[in-house]
């Protein structure tokens, strides 16, 4: 039923709530929570050395995958898909999944980092095959693949807090002067034409995976300037537009428009041509635990090959060049051993790879954006003036990226407890400085910052915050700075030949699931070719 007696919202409450409102804001009791992050100790061991020498006989193996993030897992998935099982995946952390790992408490699972995958483009064949295998694509419609509705982000996807009102979408719809609207329109038009542009090599100007993008200098020249400079040159200077674009850059790259290559900035808007039935091409796939759903499904597929809590700490090409020596340390028993592999896939960020295999790869000028992700457990759902709670909730007045709601997909109950995942890329300072600040802040300081930001967006959460768990990513995302398309270190890593191959989204320069997956699949297929195994090409 039934009749809406009035549009006016009627909320619960009583005198207790009144007291809280009048007295609130002053007394702040400490909030429960943890301060965590990637395993610094193990990470810094790689930087500083100190692993014991390998012991025992050298073990001969076919394939080693070093790194259990999305790229390494995708390599393993690709090998398994071809029926090849003779490989081992070593992961330094206790759990695979890399930036896509997740946490869980009694309320919900929640992401610690990467948390969604846009519906893939037509060109992302390997990814689509995987999604089909995992039951995420359930069939084929006339207009494209059919996605499982439980895994497509349910409406409402995004809302924006703008001048005290929540509204749908991420760009303000009201209260803008006509020049502001005109700039937005001009930008949208420019992106629409980039989206359909084809280069002189017959490829789309911007593709995902980005390796399939056109090499036409018309487009690659955009890598010669920053996104901000490109916008300035086009006189797209309206503050509302620039604020929106800044949000987008920080969301996808953890960096400011002033730092990001114009090619990358445009790629965000011009590369997505999701292919799906039911008009779902512009949707996203998401899960309470974020992309850990995909990571876990990949890991499950290759579970007998996984070796977590193992650091690969040295990789060298053997003198004859046919194999590679891999030194790996088992953190459980504090012992190291040596393997000789026909192929090693370095599925790790480049700054790590350059320490493990310094002769095979140089760190280049890569820089990484640090991020802080806080999972805020609340006893009731956030509300707010205007449009009701969305999956992604962003405020124009905040320097954070807002929060996503972990239970958005699974329930229809708009009340009750949930977990809000709050994202904050530390993009203003230079990455090195930001990392220092990140590490020196205490849990209480981070919690206070999260709390202030969240309360600014949702004062209705007063008294509803149960815990704030803070996760720090020192090197969350590769930053696609100008020149990244032609960076020689990246080029060299891409062209590396067996026995040592590289697989990571760093090779693309864009920290996206699709890129990591593509690099992993490519490395897997090159491995299969090198071993002389038959397979049907996916990538």
């Amino acid at each position, binding site marked *: *039923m*039934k*009749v*809406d*007696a*009035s*549009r*006016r*919202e*009627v*909320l*619960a*409450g*009583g*005198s207790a*709530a*009144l007291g809280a*409102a*009048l007295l609130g804001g002053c007394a702040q009791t400490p909030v429960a929570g943890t301060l965590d992050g990637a395993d610094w100790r193990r990470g810094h061991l790689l930087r500083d050395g100190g692993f014991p020498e390998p012991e025992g006989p050298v073990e001969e193996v076919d394939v080693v995958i070093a790194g259990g993030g999305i790229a390494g897992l995708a390599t393993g998935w690709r090998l398994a898909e071809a029926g090849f099982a003779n490989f081992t995946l070593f992961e330094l952390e206790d759990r695979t999944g890399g930036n896509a790992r997740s946490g869980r408490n009694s309320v919900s699972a929640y992401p610690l980092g990467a948390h969604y995958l846009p519906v893939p483009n037509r060109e992302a064949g390997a990814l689509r095959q995987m999604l089909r295998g995992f039951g995420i694509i359930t069939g084929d419609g006339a207009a494209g693949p059919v996605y499982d*509705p*439980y895994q*497509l*982000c*349910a*409406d*409402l*996807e995004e809302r924006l807090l703008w001048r005290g009102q929540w509204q749908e979408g991420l760009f303000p719809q009201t209260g803008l002067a006509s020049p502001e609207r005109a700039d937005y329109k001009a930008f949208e038009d420019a992106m629409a034409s980039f989206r359909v542009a084809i280069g002189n090599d017959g490829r789309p100007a911007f593709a995902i995976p980005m390796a399939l993008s056109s090499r036409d200098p018309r487009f690659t020249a955009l890598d010669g300037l920053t996104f901000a400079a490109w916008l300035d040159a086009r006189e797209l200077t309206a503050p509302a537009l620039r604020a929106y674009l800044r949000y987008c850059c920080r969301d996808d790259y953890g960096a400011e428009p002033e730092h990001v290559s114009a090619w990358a900035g445009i790629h965000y808007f011009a590369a997505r041509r999701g292919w799906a039935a*039911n*008009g*779902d091409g512009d*949707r996203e796939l998401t899960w309470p635990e974020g992309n850990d759903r995909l990571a876990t499904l990949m890991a499950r597929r290759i579970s007998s090959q996984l070796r977590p809590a193992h650091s690969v700490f040295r990789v060298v090409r053997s003198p004859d060049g046919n194999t590679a020596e891999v030194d790996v340390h088992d953190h459980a028993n504090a012992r190291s051993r040596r393997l000789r592999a026909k192929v090693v896939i370095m599925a790790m960020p480049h700054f790590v790879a350059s320490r493990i295999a310094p002769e095979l790869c140089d760190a280049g000028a890569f820089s990484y954006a640090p991020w802080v992700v806080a999972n805020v457990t609340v006893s*009731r759902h956030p509300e707010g003036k205007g449009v*009701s*709670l*969305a999956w992604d909730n962003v405020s124009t007045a905040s320097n954070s990226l807002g929060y996503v709601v972990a239970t958005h997909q*699974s*329930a*229809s*109950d*708009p*009340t*009750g407890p949930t977990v809000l995942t709050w994202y904050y890329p530390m993009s203003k300072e230079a990455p090195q400085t930001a990392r220092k600040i990140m590490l020196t802040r205490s849990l209480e300081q981070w919690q206070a910052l999260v709390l202030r930001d969240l309360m600014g967006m949702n004062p209705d959460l007063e008294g509803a915050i149960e815990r704030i768990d803070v996760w720090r990513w020192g090197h969350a995302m590769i930053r696609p700075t100008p020149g990244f398309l032609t960076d020689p270190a990246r080029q060299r890593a891409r062209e590396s030949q067996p026995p040592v191959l590289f697989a990571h989204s760093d090779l693309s320069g864009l920290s996206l699931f699709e890129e990591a997956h593509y690099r992993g699949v490519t490395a897997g297929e090159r491995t299969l070719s090198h071993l002389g195994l038959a397979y049907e090409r996916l990538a």
Partner: protein
Amino acid sequence: MAEMEVSAGPGDGADGRAAGSLAVILLVSVLVVATCGLIYELLAGTLASYLLGDSVTQFSTVIGTYLFAMGVGSWLSRHVRRDEMGVFVRVEILIAMLGGWSAAGLFLLFPLVGDFRLVLYALVLAIGALVGLEIPLLIRILRHRFAFRELVSNVLTYDYVGALIASLLFPLVLVPWLGMIRTGFVFGLANVAVALALLVALRRQRRIAGDVLAALMVTASLVCGMVFADRLQRWSEVAFYAEPVIYARSTPYQRIVLTRRGNDLRLYLNGNLQFSTRDEYRYHEALVWPVLGRVASPRAVLILGGGDGLAAREVLKDARVGHVTLVDLDPEMTRLFRDSPQLSQLNAGALSSPRMTVHNADAFRWVRAAKGSYDAVIIDFPDPTEFSLGKLYTETFYREVARLLAPDGVMTVQSTSPLVAPASYWTVATTLESAGLRARGYHAYVPSFGEWGFTLAAHRAVEDAVHVPPGLRFLTPASERAMFDFPPDMARRPTPVNRLDNQALVRSFAREWGQYEG
């Protein structure tokens, strides 16, 4: 106020000018306190008729009580033997606090206290008595400054002028523009301003620190009240209902409010009317019997929503029904309609029937996990006003329900008004069809809702043949058949499918009801 002719009385220690300005303040005070006094009276009367209904009785008794209390105050003034000024100032501070918070306090206390009348009349008595003290005290304070003839004339003139101001401001400006809660605070501030002005004027003659502190604290509390008036307004939602509220409770899921006027009992969830006892039988007969009457053997019945147990009451009338499973989000709702004698009487004890199993769960999650086969499914959710509710009308949801529906089973869905929101109404049918079912719409007139729509669905075509049991108040075989006829203004039209990722229904519902309500 313009110049006043005042004569400095004998025996005043202060010089003539100071005494004159004090007299001016005092006469202004008469105007202010008279206005405030009448405002509090009007607030209490209006509030009482809002909250308790029967405005003639409420207004009359509140005003009577108030005037009587003023008499009590006037009589009590004889016991003030010295320091009339000090007592007057403190009376002002007290009135400011009580009167200023009166509207907010009454609204807030209403759902919390057992006997609201007791609170109401106690407050009216207290404020009335304090206001009754004001004029006698003022006359005594001013008695040396005016001739008696002038004094009575001045004081009563300002008193009655104040009353006129109040009675015009209250309905024309204050209630429409400020609302009752803010009005209370504004006039509380006026009272405390009188106290503060007098204290400032008297600062040379007496110790005022304690009184000033009290006055400032009251001022601060009133200003706080002003600032949070919107929130107070929301919390005190009883002002929202047209009928007297007899029960109000917030659960983690919703606000449950019951109102009663005469024999008309109404249930509101989050301010939305769920039923009125005057005509709910029409709604529930139309919801239930077209389904049960089309199933050969309705052994197992599933009700989604409907925690009031009224649909269950209809279902349990059918002796063929062996078991009813009811899924409602809110345990408080089903508890209330099971345990409250007044409410379980409405559903004939359906929720405590041995044939009934109640699950308090989010239906969206429940159907996804549920197994089993139901011969009839009755879906009675709130209208899709929110994205969260919209999920319960999606193709994905109906696919899960279709999985639970027996091959020969029939289901029905309450589908909003086909007259007010035809596109929304037919979206339900389109969506059910998209989920692989055959759908058929029908509608009934329920006076408290208007023209209301339902949708039948089944794995096979929904037939005309129906068994309507005798003895219903609304449905007969003939009126059942008539429900399937849609005149052109409600006729079927093409609509999109409501999907989790487009929420087409929530959007069209907001548009159509928005236009309807203008």
